[in-house]
């Protein structure tokens, strides 16, 4: 049944326009890669701070306030452009190992972020300006950074593994 849905998705006018039109896919790919690159860079600033490897003179909350809103905007752009790209070869992408791993990494990042916000961030007043943060914060930073490197890596490998 899923395969039927994916085949239907590939046949929609929007998907056809993007996959067969002269500019749809390349333009979307350009936007998607740029947005994802930007998300990685911005998140890395927070993650490296959490790990105590950079920006140790800055409060975590200050960096969070500066970085997160823009990161969300870029993420939404990446998600929309990525969704549109997916429709052009939905069946092939769904069977692509690197594509599946990319989404597994994104799921891990989402869970990590949720856990950080719910259980670690509320205690920020105690360690906001500390050079070395609590283990839970450092772990969240490490998982996030590794997760986003995995997302970028898997995304690059998708093209090499397309059937």
């Amino acid at each position, binding site marked *: 049944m899923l395969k039927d849905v994916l085949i239907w998705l590939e046949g929609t006018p929007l998907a056809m326009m993007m996959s067969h039109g*002269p*500019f749809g896919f*390349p*333009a979307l*790919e*350009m936007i998607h*890669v*740029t947005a994802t*690159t*930007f*998300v*990685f*860079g*911005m998140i*890395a*600033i927070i993650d490296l701070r959490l790990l105590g490897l*950079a*920006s140790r*003179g*800055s*409060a975590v909350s*200050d*960096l969070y*306030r*500066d*970085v997160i809103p*823009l990161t969300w905007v870029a993420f939404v752009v990446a998600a929309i452009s990525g969704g549109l790209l997916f429709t052009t070869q939905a069946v092939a992408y769904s069977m692509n190992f690197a594509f599946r791993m990319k989404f597994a990494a994104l799921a891990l990042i989402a869970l990590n972020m949720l856990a950080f916000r719910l259980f670690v961030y509320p205690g920020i007043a105690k360690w906001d300006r500390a050079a070395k943060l609590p283990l839970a914060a450092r772990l969240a930073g490490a998982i996030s950074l590794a997760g986003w*490197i995995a997302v*970028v*890596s898997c995304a*690059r*490998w998708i093209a*090499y593994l397309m059937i």
Partner: protein
Amino acid sequence: MAELAAWLTSLPVGQALRRLNWLAPWLQIIHILANGMILSAVVMIDMRIWGISRSQASVTMARRFQPWIWGALGLLTVSGILLMLYTPRRALSDLAFQVKMTTMGFAIAATIALAWALRSGSRAADGNPDRHPLTTLLATATLVLWVGVTLAGRGRWFVLMMNRIMS
């Protein structure tokens, strides 16, 4: 350009790389990650200059993030050169690559100019480089140019547009 491409193709390092096909995706990954670091460092500096972020002075922000720009640029350059050596003829004749390199040249110049403007402005009478129009202009130009470099890196769309315009 053809002679340069032929010479680059003949280099031992290029020949060695072409025997290691599996390395190309990893070099591309490093290239993309370095690009991301440059973009984010530029944005952090620019947000302070534009007044969106007020956590630290512009000069302090620049002093903190500019080393990231130069470090990431080093990674970008090394990985970019190695990637180019895989297929020098195709890379050098690619319009998008030429646009990317030109844009990167301007981006580096703008980044250096912004660093100079911030240092000069901090020694000025009012000690506040943020308000100087030149600093704001250079901050904007730097971001636009580095985003341009990123876009040109996936420049198939751009090449298609140019071919359509010229045909």
